[in-house]
């Protein structure tokens, strides 16, 4: 008995750990999106802020990439769904001897690394372009076109797998009946097979769009000089990161959760309708059924989630974190003073030189101790700032716009922070906006 209990505890622990691994990173990323620290992190917690979402909305490159991604996604759907369907149908009709070869060829794009697919597409069209002496503005060198083609190569195979699964349940007798009743071949295809495939078309389209939207390995080679959301994101993440990327992740996770809930609700409804039909002997959906659809607790839950989400976002848009930020600055100042006093006695002179070489604001050095050290050296700079009229103007400028204003780049903010922190006027200014 005890061993069984032990196993059960062990299994439970394993599952908890597994899901912690699964959700922990996303959770931490989500938390970091609301932290006012200019470097994305969950600890140390500074202030609750939504400025990163505002910043995200103003990021031109990201938005351009997003539109590109959406356009490419739709094109990929338009290319790969018909191709995938043709592949699946043809697979049921080809000669038994050719079938394994045919299947191996059309399934291979899934097993080939995405990088290789991207490279081969790029080279193929480039060589074709050279052969035809095409200009560099022609389709052979267009990043969007190459990306659509490159992605469709393997996404068509995904779609084909979806169609194969659906086709396995198709009854060929239906087609024969239609033909016997005098339908033409085209009519049989259009009125029998296509409607049967419609649910698969829908799910293949969704799958294709998602796969295209988040593809990176193929896209990075085929996109050439253009950009998609993923390539913009990747270059952002590689060269300096800020929490607006976390903010984007929060939005994506929220949309995903919503999608998952909708999907689950739809699936349940479908199952219930099917059951009801079976009970009533294929009768059409009854009124009672329709009524129950509205009163479904899952629907109510979904509506609540949506309302809560919209309300949350609405509240966020008006949340002002200036007061809290001032408070954090104040705390940092106290912390610095405590650390600085003994230090300045020894290195006051060196400190002035040190600030020149220091890159303020570029990700404060590691951990909690980092908070004090660079700022401590920056202390003389702080006094320097008092006599600089520009600092004041600068500060009041951002102050008037409040926290909704686009955040200055990390470096700028950092230098403001270093220069202005000892300036009492700055504090007044900022607390002023806090009251606004």
């Amino acid at each position, binding site marked *: 008995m005890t061993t069984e209990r032990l196993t059960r505890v062990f*299994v439970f622990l*394993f*599952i908890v750990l*597994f*899901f912690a*691994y*699964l959700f922990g*990173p*996303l959770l*931490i*990323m989500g938390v*970091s999106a609301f932290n006012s620290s200019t470097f994305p*992190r969950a*600890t140390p917690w500074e202030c609750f802020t939504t400025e990163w979402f505002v910043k995200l909305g103003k990021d031109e490159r990201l938005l351009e990439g997003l539109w590109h991604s959406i356009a490419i996604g739709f094109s990929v759907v338009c290319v790969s769904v*018909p191709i995938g369907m*043709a*592949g699946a*149908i*043809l697979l049921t*009709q080809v000669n038994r001897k050719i079938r394994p070869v045919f*299947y191996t060829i*059309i*399934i291979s*794009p*899934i*097993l080939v*690394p*995405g*990088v290789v697919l991207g*490279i*081969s*597409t790029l*080279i*193929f069209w480039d060589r074709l372009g050279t052969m035809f002496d095409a200009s560099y503005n022609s389709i052979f060198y267009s990043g969007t076109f190459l990306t659509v*083609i490159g992605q*469709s*190569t393997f996404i068509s195979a995904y779609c084909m*797998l979806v169609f194969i699964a659906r086709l396995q349940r198709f009854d060929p007798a239906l087609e024969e009946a239609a033909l016997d009743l005098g339908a033409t*071949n*085209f009519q*049989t295809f259009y009125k029998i097979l296509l409607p049967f495939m419609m649910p698969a078309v829908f799910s293949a389209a969704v799958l294709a769009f998602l796969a295209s939207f*988040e593809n*990176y*390995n193929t896209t990075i*080679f085929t996109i050439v000089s253009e950009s998609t959301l993923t390539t913009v994101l*990747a270059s952002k*993440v*590689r060269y300096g*990161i800020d929490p607006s*990327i*976390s903010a*984007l*992740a929060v939005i*994506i*996770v929220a949309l995903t959760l919503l999608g*998952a809930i909708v999907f*689950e609700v739809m699936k349940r409804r479908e199952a219930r309708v099917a059951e009801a039909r079976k009970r009533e002997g294929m009768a059409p959906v009854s009124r009672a059924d329709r009524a129950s659809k509205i009163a479904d607790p899952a629907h109510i839950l979904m509506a609540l989630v949506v309302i809560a989400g919209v309300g949350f976002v609405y509240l966020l848009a008006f949340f002002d974190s200036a007061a809290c930020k001032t408070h954090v600055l104040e705390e940092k100042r106290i912390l610095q003073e405590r650390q600085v006093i003994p230090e300045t006695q020894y290195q006051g002179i060196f400190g002035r030189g040190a600030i020149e070489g220091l890159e303020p604001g570029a990700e404060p050095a590691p*951990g*909690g*101790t980092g908070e004090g050290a660079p700022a401590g050296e920056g202390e003389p700079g702080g006094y320097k700032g008092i006599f600089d009229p520009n600092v004041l103007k600068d500060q009041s400028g951002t102050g008037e716009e409040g926290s909704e204003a686009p955040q200055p780049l990390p470096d700028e903010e950092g230098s403001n922070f270093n220069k202005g922190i000892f300036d009492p006027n700055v504090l007044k200014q900022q607390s002023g906006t806090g009251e606004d």
Partner: protein
Amino acid sequence: MQKFIRKNGIVVSIYLLGACTIWIALMIVLPQVFMLDFSFRFNLPPAKIGGPEDVYTLSNYSHLLFGRANNPESFNWLDTSVFGKTITAAIFVTIFDVVICYPIAFYLAQVAKGGYARFMVLSLIVPFWVNEILRAFAFRIIFSSSGLINTVGMGMGIWDEPFDFIKLDIALYAGLGYAFILLMIFPIYNAVESLDKNQLEAARDLGSPWWRIHWRVVIPFAKPGIASGCTMVFMLSAGALAAPQILGGPSSLWFTQIIYQWFNTGGNWPRGSSYAIVLLVTCTIFVMLMMRLFKVRLGEIAR
């Protein structure tokens, strides 16, 4: 052929054959052939392509093994060691994923019931709709020198210096393992789900301990699923580009990154494609090895 057209009618026949021809010829076969051809050529400016200097060469492949012609060392240690490291690390990631995914897949398929199991499946899927770059980014937040683990660890006084997870590639392995969990769980889950519970009970009644039940009953039954999961995870981690770019240390490279460099900053496409061919051949060998080892067919792997 005539039978085919008579069966489908002319319009549908054209659609079926046309779509498949475009797919197979223009998208699958010809690009690979062109890439193979290109990998045997010198890196020439566009004007000289097709000219007298445009001849076949093995120099791109020999560069991977022996480096530049005037290389003081006789062997290209840099590229080959990166290649070796990539393959070993991909195998390591695959094993890691099998170890953590098999129990969960088994639990989902055989132990968990009804709504609870559905909820678990749903919560497995949700993280994988998040962009691959964002997932890597999340790991960077956790593992960077001022990241969560270091802040917490130093805050609690367990270690004083920030621990460099990125340089040691711990972040990279954790991120890669994370990225492909789903591709390991679902094939195993599909395989285990069709296992008859009576077999498990029979084994238990006959006095078999739990580990032997798994070793002798469940794992042999789930072999196609495990093979499929392993293949997918290996291929994807060996061919991963985003995670190594984001989570890799400054001094460590992934083989795909070298390929990317030849195309991007290196500006030597033929060499890049010869490296890509090497990667492709390696992956193909791995797939065939898995098929042989687990005695499964290709159709069962790609599902």
